[in-house]
């Protein structure tokens, strides 16, 4: 009987532990090594990233969808997101997207948000792994301007009203943080559409995107920073090649595709494309150093050091180089257009290192010369003394 009681107690204990473990662990089975990324948006693999691209005519309606998925570490916690379609514009100087504040619709010829309709105002994601398709439609008005129009569909932790009017005074002090993330929609309305892509500028910069006096750089890595401008009214997706050579374009030191990811240049905007070049034995490494200030805040500083990779000694970079952009794009009629080649000259001369080496060599030579002179003097002196002593003996 006593044995049975012990058994019973053991069962109760084990069951309790199991229940506790399930409660603590949460009800949704998730792999131990699962990465939790938060609100996950997904578009089909066939799409080029997070940009929906439609070619439409006036009066036409097209629909599509993407997926919002719960991928939060808090597996049992329900998250709610509010949907909003928002125009954005490209800052002509910074070339960055700028979302409007206090409004969602912009009054410019590339505006699209007002043409978008969403199948819901909000989406609830009750537990980990739950996914919800977000459907949307675009209806092009009869009076739409030809060309590309663009906007974003955003999922937001704050309501549309809160975004437009702000959050009223709270009982808690501090910063209230709203977060929005979403997909881009580009609609090109048929008619008099055109692309006109040109190279606005091409410059070679150092690791920190800074230029150099007379384009003389000391070490790699170097960045080829190209700004393209699209004076047309339809987006363009440029392609081509970047070659770095010493004057003979057919004999490149470095040859890579330009814009391999297929980024677009929106109409009447500039866009920046960066290509990194770092294949030589001498290169600068930028280290991130984290420290804590007197108030306990994490501070980040950067330091630079010269690294040497002897395995790449055959690719030692020194002297004058040219970087040439050979660019192509399809115009609005589907004809391949080749933009005139654009070439910039630059130098790689580790002049500080050379100066140090020269200084060392000159110093050593000077010391050697002085030492030699001293030796000669010493020997002459000794020789004269010896001769004198010889004479004396004679």
């Amino acid at each position, binding site marked *: 009987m006593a044995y049975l009681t012990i058994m019973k107690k053991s069962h109760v204990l084990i069951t309790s532990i199991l229940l506790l473990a399930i409660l603590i662990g949460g009800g949704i089975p998730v792999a131990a090594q699962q990465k*939790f*990324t*938060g*609100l*996950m*948006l*997904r578009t*089909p*693999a066939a*799409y080029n*990233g*997070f940009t929906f691209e439609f070619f439409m005519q006036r009066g036409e309606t097209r629909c599509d969808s993407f997926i919002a998925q719960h*991928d*939060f570490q*808090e597996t049992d*916690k329900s998250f*709610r997101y509010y949907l909003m379609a928002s125009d*954005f514009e490209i800052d002509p*100087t*910074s*070339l*960055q*997207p*700028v979302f409007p*504040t206090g409004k969602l619709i912009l009054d410019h010829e590339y505006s699209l948000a007002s043409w978008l309709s969403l199948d819901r105002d909000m989406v609830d994601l009750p537990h980990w792994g739950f996914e919800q398709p977000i459907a949307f439609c675009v209806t092009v008005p009869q009076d739409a301007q030809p060309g590309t129009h*663009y906007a974003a569909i955003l999922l937001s932790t*704050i309501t549309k009203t809160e975004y437009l009017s*702000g959050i009223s*005074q*709270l*009982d*808690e*002090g*501090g*910063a*209230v*943080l*709203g*977060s*929005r*993330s*979403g*997909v*881009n929609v*580009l609609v090109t309305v048929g008619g008099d559409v055109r692309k006109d892509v040109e190279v606005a500028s091409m410059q070679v910069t150092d690791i920190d995107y*800074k230029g150099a006096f007379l384009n003389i750089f000391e070490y790699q890595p170097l960045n080829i*920073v190209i*700004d393209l401008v699209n004076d047309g009214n339809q*987006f363009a997706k440029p392609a081509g090649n970047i070659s770095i050579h010493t004057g003979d374009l057919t004999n490149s030191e470095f040859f890579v595709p330009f814009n391999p*990811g297929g*980024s*677009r240049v929106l109409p009447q905007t500039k*866009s*920046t494309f*960066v290509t990194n070049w770092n294949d030589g034995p001498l290169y600068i490494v930028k280290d991130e150093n984290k420290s804590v200030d007197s*108030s306990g*805040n*994490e*501070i980040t*500083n950067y330091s630079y050091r010269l690294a040497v990779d002897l395995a790449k000694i055959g690719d030692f970079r020194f002297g004058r180089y040219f970087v040439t952009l050979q660019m192509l794009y399809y115009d609005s009629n589907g004809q391949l257009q080749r933009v005139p080649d654009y070439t910039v000259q630059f130098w790689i001369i580790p002049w500080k290192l050379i100066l140090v080496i020269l200084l060392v060599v000159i110093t050593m030579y000077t010391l050697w010369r002085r030492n030699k002179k001293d030796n000669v003097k010493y020997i002459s002196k000794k020789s004269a003394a010896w001769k004198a002593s010889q004479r004396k003996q004679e």
Partner: protein
Amino acid sequence: MKTYTKLHKTVALLTVFALVSGVFGFLNVQKASAAAITSMSITGTGITANSSTLNTAITPTVNFTHPSTLNTDGQTLQISLNGISVASGQTLTVADLTLTGCSFNTLEATPGTDNNGAHEVTITNGASGNDNPVVLITLDDDTGPTAPSCTGAMTLAVAAAQVVSHDTTAANYAIHIQSTLDSGSFFYYVGDENDVQITATVDNVLSFTIRNTADTADQANVGGSAVGPNLCDLGNLSTAGVQSCSYRLKVATNAVNGYYVQVVVDGGLRKTGYTITNTATGSAPTSGVEGYNILLAAGSATVGTRTTCDGAITSGNCLADGIDWSNGTGTIFNNTSASTMYSVNGPNNPASTDTTNTALVTHRAESDPGTAAGIFNQFATYTVVARW
């Protein structure tokens, strides 16, 4: 009776002997059966190891190792070229064939001449358009007459171009090699019947969440709510020291062109009628002096390169709005127009807990005796979009 018994015994003995001899004789026949031809393959122009293209001209060579020795006039070697067709308008003849592996390898059409050192060849299905031609070689002595010796590594090739081609039907065809002594078969893949195409797709993924400083949990929500905006609680701003709160911006994406992280605020840290003085970029709030700004440690990305807008870049990588988000000491945080804090030009795949490939934002504030009492708030909205 005695004679009968003797006879009976003799018959019994003979019967047993006959039976034993028969059994051993049978076993001996089994022992003499054909050995297996090994190392069989087909090579040549137009032939691919695992899936040759349908209906293309080929010059095949059948390679094999014949373990026994064919060394008697009249012994045969037959090769069935299944999966091969005679091209339209062509005829497969002895002149198109090449044999190696015998002591002498000359071939002639049947019936040929006896003991002339040329083996007689009979080709079945060798006419134009026929499938699966069969080549039968009957060995011949030379003029010696010396018997041929065919053994070890041997080949039979259709050396002439444009005479034969692959079959028009995709299948795994068996090529048979049969000699008087040995035999073997192997599969020859024509078309893609033996191929398995493995496909998989990966969706485009973009994730964004605001996490706590250690990236171990989601940042707390306003009012302890389960949903809605997050809160960075600066606590009570005494004059005794700078108060701070921090959080991480965690973006994960496989977007090859990267993403932008943008922020806009609704004004300063304020209550009705009073705004805490903004501490200028490049300075940190100091103890006992009213001030407020943030510190951004924008971190890295696992694949893409992160660029923090510092205003120093005249190119389009960064903002010219005067906000230096890369300042290591502090950045004024009162931009009521959206501003890109940082951008990444490629994918980012942070770990489940990752303080390297996430951005740390620290808000810092201090009051002084002149600061109005009350609850101070600021509303910041972060927007993340992939580059188009």
